[in-house]
C-alpha cells in the first residue's frame, strides 16, 4: 500500500523514485521466494514424490515414525501447559507488582532466547546425565526421590495457599495470619510429614529403580519447556501493562472475589495475547531440535521426536519418509501462520469497528 505513489500524481517528499521502489520490491520478493516459498513447495513435492499411498505408509506404518509423532504430541502439550502456568504467573508478577529483582526476572525470562539450544540441552545433561551432578544417584535409586518430590509439591502448595489466602490488610489478620513464620514453619513441617510418611510407610515407590530424565521423556519435556518459556510471558507482559489495574479495582468494588476477578476480568482482557502466545509457544515446542537433540539420545521409537526423526530418516537416505514427517511440521507451521494472521485481522477489525462507531457517536 505504501509502495504505490500517492494518488493524483502527487509524490510525497519521502517517496523514492519508481525504479528504487521496483528494485527493492523485486529483491524482497525474490529473496522470500528463493528462501521460503520454493523450499516449502519442495517439502511437499518430495513427500508426495512416490504417491499418496507411500506418503501415508511412511507416516503411519513406520513404527518409529509413528512413535515420534506420538512423542511430540506428548512433549509439546506438556511443555505448553507448564509454560502457560509459569508464563501467566511471571507476567502477572511483572506487570502488576514492583518487587526487588523485578528487572532481573524480566531479563531471565528472555534468557532462553539468547542461549543456544544446544547449550540449554547440555545444561540438563550436566545436571541429570550420568556424568552429571545428580545423574548417578538417579540411576542407582531414582524413585526414592519421588516421596520427597511429592511432599515438596504439597509443601509448596501449602505455602502458596497461605500467601494467597492471607488478608492483604495488616489489621484484618488474626490468629495464624499474624504469624507467618510460625505457621509456614510448623504447618509446613506438618504438611510435609503428612505427605511423606504414608508414602514411606506403605512403600509406594519401588527401590533401586533408576529414574531416567536424560534420554527419556522427562528430559525432553524439560528441555522443550526451557526453550519455549519466553513465548507466553513475553506476549502477556505488554498486554497486562497496557490494561492496568483499574478494571480489576472496579470489579473488586463491585464485589468480585479473586477467582471471579481472574476469570471474568483479567483473562478475557488478555485473551488475545494469551492465544497468540500459546500458538507461538506450541509451534516452537513442536519444532524444537537443538536442545532436544542433546537430551534425547536418539533411541528410535522411544526418544525421537518428529524433528529428530526427520533428521534420522534424512541421514538414512530415506527422502520420502523424511519429507513426509517434515510436511507434517510444515503444516503445523502454516496453520500457525494462518491462525496468527487471522487473529491479527480479527483484532484490527474489532478495533476499527470500535473506533468508527465511537467516532460516529461522538460527532
Amino acid at each position: 500500500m505504501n509502495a504505490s505513489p500517492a494518488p493524483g500524481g502527487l509524490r510525497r517528499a519521502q517517496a523514492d523514485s519508481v525504479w528504487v521502489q521496483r528494485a527493492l520490491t523485486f529483491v524482497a520478493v525474490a529473496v522470500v521466494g528463493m528462501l521460503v516459498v520454493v523450499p516449502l513447495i519442495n517439502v511437499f513435492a518430495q513427500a508426495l514424490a512416490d504417491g499418496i499411498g507411500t506418503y501415508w505408509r511412511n507416516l503411519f506404518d513406520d513404527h518409529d515414525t509413528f512413535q515420534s509423532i506420538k512423542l511430540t504430541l506428548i512433549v509439546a502439550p506438556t511443555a505448553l501447559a507448564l509454560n502457560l502456568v509459569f508464563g501467566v504467573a511471571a507476567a502477572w508478577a511483572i506487570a502488576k507488582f514492583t518487587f526487588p529483582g523485578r528487572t532481573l526476572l524480566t531479563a531471565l525470562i528472555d534468557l532462553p532466547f539468547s542461549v543456544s539450544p544446544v547449550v540449554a540441552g547440555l545444561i540438563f545433561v550436566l545436571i541429570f546425565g550420568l556424568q552429571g551432578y545428580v545423574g548417578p544417584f538417579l540411576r542407582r535409586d531414582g524413585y526414592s526421590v519421588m516421596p520427597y518430590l511429592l511432599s515438596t509439591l504439597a509443601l509448596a502448595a501449602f505455602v502458596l495457599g497461605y500467601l494467597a489466602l492471607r488478608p492483604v490488610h495488616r489489621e484484618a489478620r488474626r490468629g495464624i495470619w499474624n504469624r507467618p513464620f510460625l505457621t509456614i514453619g510448623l504447618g509446613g513441617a506438618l504438611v510435609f510429614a503428612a505427605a511423606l510418611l504414608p508414602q514411606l510407610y506403605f512403600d509406594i515407590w519401588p527401590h533401586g529403580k533408576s529414574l531416567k530424565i536424560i534420554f527419556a521423556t522427562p528430559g525432553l519435556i524439560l528441555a522443550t519447556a526451557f526453550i519455549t518459556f519466553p513465548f507466553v510471558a513475553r506476549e502477556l507482559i505488554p498486554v497486562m501493562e497496557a490494561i492496568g489495574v483499574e478494571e480489576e479495582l472496579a470489579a473488586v468494588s463491585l464485589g468480585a472475589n479473586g477467582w471471579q476477578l481472574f476469570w471474568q476480568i483479567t483473562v478475557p482482557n488478555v485473551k488475545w495475547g494469551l492465544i497468540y502466545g500459546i500458538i507461538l509457544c506450541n509451534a516452537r515446542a513442536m519444532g524444537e531440535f537443538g536442545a532436544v537433540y542433546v537430551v534425547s539420545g536418539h533411541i528410535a521409537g522411544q526418544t525421537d521426536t518428529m524433528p529428530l526423526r526427520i533428521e534420522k530418516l534424512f541421514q538414512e537416505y530415506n527422502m520420502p519418509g523424511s519429507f513426509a514427517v517434515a510436511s507434517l511440521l510444515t503444516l503445523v507451521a502454516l496453520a500457525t501462520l494462518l491462525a496468527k494472521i487471522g487473529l491479527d485481522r480479527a483484532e484490527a477489525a474489532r478495533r476499527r469497528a470500535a473506533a468508527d462507531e465511537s467516532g460516529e457517536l461522538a460527532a
Partner: protein
Amino acid sequence: MSITIDRVCKRFGSFVALDDVSLDVPDGTLLALLGPSGSGKTTLLRIIAGLEIADSGRVSSDGQDITHQAARDRKVGFVFQHYALFRHMTVAENIAYGLKVRKAPRDEIKKRVDEMLELIRLDFLKNRYPGQLSGGQRQRVALARALAAQPSVLLLDEPFGALDAKVRQELRKWIRRLHDEIHVTSIFVTHDQEEAFEVADRVVVMNHARIEQVGTPSEVYAKPATAFVNQFLGNVSSFRGTVRDNRFRLGETSTYLPVREPIANGPAIACVRHHDIKVHAQSDGNGAFPARVRHVNTAGALVRCELERIDDGTRLAAEICQEHGVPASLRPGAQVFVELTNVRVFADAAS
C-alpha cells in the same frame, strides 16, 4: 448510610497523603471533596471505598467500624476517573456485573439492568461495547454500573474530569437531579470549585493532606476559614502585611484596612476577590493606593484588568462590571488608584 472518618492518616513512602483527617458525612448528602491535585482527596475517597487502607484512624458507616472490611463487602459504588468499564463486556453486561458476582437471580438482574438503562437513558446502546461509546455515555454507564447493586454509598473520582466542557455541564445537572431522585449518600472528588458549588450539598476543601474547611457551598464561599480556601475559591488577589490592633497595614505602605473578624497581631495575608477590587482614576483618600495598569481585557460582561502596585511591584487583578462604568483612564500604562473592599484578613502562618 452515614460515613464517619476518624483521625485517618495515610502515607505513601515519604509522601503524606492524609494527615489526621476527620470528617462526618450525614446520610443522604451529596458531598464534594475539593482541592488541588496532591491534596489527598482521591486517597480519602479510596480509603472510604476500601481500595486503600488507612495507616491509622477509623472509618465507620452507620456507627459500624469498617476500617478493615474488604472493598467487596462494603457495598460502595465507585466511579473511576477514566470509567474503568470492562471493555470485553457490553453496556448491559457491565451494568449487570455487580449483581452477577453477588449471584442475584437472573430475572432480577435483567429487571435491574433495564431500570438502570432507563435511568441513564441509554437503552438503545445496551448491546454496544464501551469502545463504541462517547465519553459522556461511558461516564453514565459507569455510574449505572456502580448504582446497579444498590450501594449504600456512591463514590465518584473526578467524575467529569475527562469530559469536554459542554458534556460536563449537562452531566453535572444530571447528577444533581439523579441525587435528588435516589438520595444515596454520595461523595465526589473534584478540583473545580464551580463544579463543587453547583452539584454538592456540602463542600470539603482539602489542602496538603488536611481538611481546611467543611460547609455548604454558600458558607464556604461567604466565610472562608483560611487564606487557602479564600484563594482556592474564585479569583483572589492576596496582599502581605501586618495586623496591629485589628487594623491591617498593607506592606510598608500607609494604607490601613479594617479587620472584620479579630485576629492576633502579627504578619497577615489579606485576600480580596477580584470583583471587590475597585479602580478609581483619582484618589479619594479612603485607603486607596496607587497602581499602574498592565493589561486590560474588555471582552465579556466583565472587564478584567491586571495592575501592578507602584510601591513594591506586586501584581493584582480587578474585575469591573461593564454596566457600572469603566474609568476612561483605564488604559495600559496609566496610573490608577485601587480601593479594596470586602477584605478578609488571615494570620500568615508561613512567616
